[in-house]
């Protein structure tokens, strides 16, 4: 057991009013100063804040890297990734080698109305097919429009930023 701690004394603040109306006047001084200060406002549709590179905005898909391994769909807590694929005969990589079966992606949908932006799919992907993009402007008028298909997810790839430098 840790030994009982000594607690610091209460009351480095006062509940009494030291000087009447001083607090009220101070408050009015603060708001008056604020009235003549330039507000730190970003006028959103005209000027945009640039999200940090790590921001989890939308998931981009690199179709070429995907092997249809289903790991992301299986690990997704919300079951919001739908993948379909088929196997295709590929010519042998080396002359004289065996022809190999290669999985081809037919469907890769992420339902952003279900997604909770946890990033588990990006993390488990063993082939770097999924990336986070900080892009956030993809609201839709209907919930069903939030289902992004393979083509749409590929478009996001252009918005994926370079990873930031890190502290050592």
């Amino acid at each position, binding site marked *: 057991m840790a030994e009982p701690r000594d607690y610091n004394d209460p009351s480095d603040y006062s509940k009494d009013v030291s000087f009447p109306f001083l607090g009220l006047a101070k408050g009015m001084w603060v708001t008056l100063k604020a009235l003549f200060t330039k507000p730190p406002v970003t006028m959103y549709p005209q000027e945009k804040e640039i999200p940090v590179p790590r921001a*989890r905005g939308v998931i981009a898909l690199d179709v070429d890297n995907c092997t249809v391994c289903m790991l992301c769909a299986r690990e997704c807590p919300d079951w919001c990734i739908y993948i379909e694929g088929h196997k295709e005969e590929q010519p042998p990589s080396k002359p004289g080698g065996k022809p190999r079966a290669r999985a081809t992606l037919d469907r890769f949908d992420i339902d952003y109305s279900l997604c909770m932006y946890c990033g588990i799919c990006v993390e488990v992907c063993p082939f*770097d097919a999924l990336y986070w993009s900080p892009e956030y402007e993809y609201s839709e008028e209907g919930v069903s429009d939030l289902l992004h298909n393979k083509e749409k997810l590929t478009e996001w790839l252009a918005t994926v930023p370079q990873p930031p430098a890190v502290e050592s």
Partner: protein
Amino acid sequence: MTSLDMIHRSEAAVSVELQTPDMTLNIGPQHPSTHGVLRLVAKVDGERIQDVEPVIGYMHRGYEKLSEVRTYAQITALVNRIDWVSGFANEVPFIIGLEKLMGVEAPERAQWIRVILSELARISSHLVFMASYPLELGGTTPLMFALREREYILELIEEVTGGRFHPNFNRVGGVKPAYGGGSTTKKQSMDLPQGFFQRTSDAMDRMDTILDQLSELATGNEIIKMRTVDVGVIPGDKALEYGLTGPNLRASGVGYDLRKADPYLTYDQVEFDVPVGRDGDCYDRYMMRFLEIRESSKIVRQAIDKIPSGPLQAKVPRVLKAPAGQVYSRAENPKGEFGYFIVSEGGKMPYRLKIRSTSFSNLTILPWVLQGQLIPDLVAIMGSLDFVLGDVDR
């Protein structure tokens, strides 16, 4: 000043007792000061509340059941949604418990990062309180001042974790953002972004200024004092009986802070004070949070100085399986003791996960403390308990 003192406590009791039937006033679930969807069925006699029955559950998401069908990695993503104003702080106790269960210890750098982000989460959570509490008392301006400052804090959290509210940054054995990129960049980008320490200590400096402003706007304000001093007094033994923790308990004069009483992470290596109140009234509860922001920024500054370099992640198996066992782990969430009781039967998912959410316990005292209060005081007391409905309903 006597004039303000004289008019400060309600003596509105009518000397001639009129026989009036009680009126049932339904407050919420849609009400500006119930922080979401709390409903109070109050029996009132004029403005005085005879009896109040809180009705919760409008935001019940069944996290304890959901956790039983989710793997441990998926639960980490879930738990930061319980109390969304301090998402990171909810992950910490869960991941500590899981690490205990699996016998893994996170590297020191990861532990320090957890400390920094926990304290940033505490600051942001308390700033929400500093914003919303004066609003409940009718003062609208502190809201903007505090929320603007919180935005800078959230930006810092986002910069590291990728999420403002839901970091999902803790992994068993370390910390790690989910960042897409080639395998090499994935590894590189795990650490804190460059310049983070500088920006954080700048933010802490700015915090001092904003706290001065807030104290001029709200803390020293006579009307705030009139509305909160000696209102909603919770004595220490009642607070313990109802399981109040965190600033609400400390306001009642019980200096119980898990960061000191049961140090976890690297809290035993930093120096800070735990503010303790005396009377347990609304003003004490308000001041606890106000003073804790200062202490938190002290901790963050020390952590920035002390953080060592090194790995962020201990070696863990790819598929997380916890051995059978039962572990209770807790941490000092901004709102109080946040605990997880993990019952594992050796699988990938817990057999049972009991979430001891802070706001739920803090709210149980509501019927007791609201008896005989006035309707305006109801708002003041409810606000001073600083609950989040997601944390109450789970």
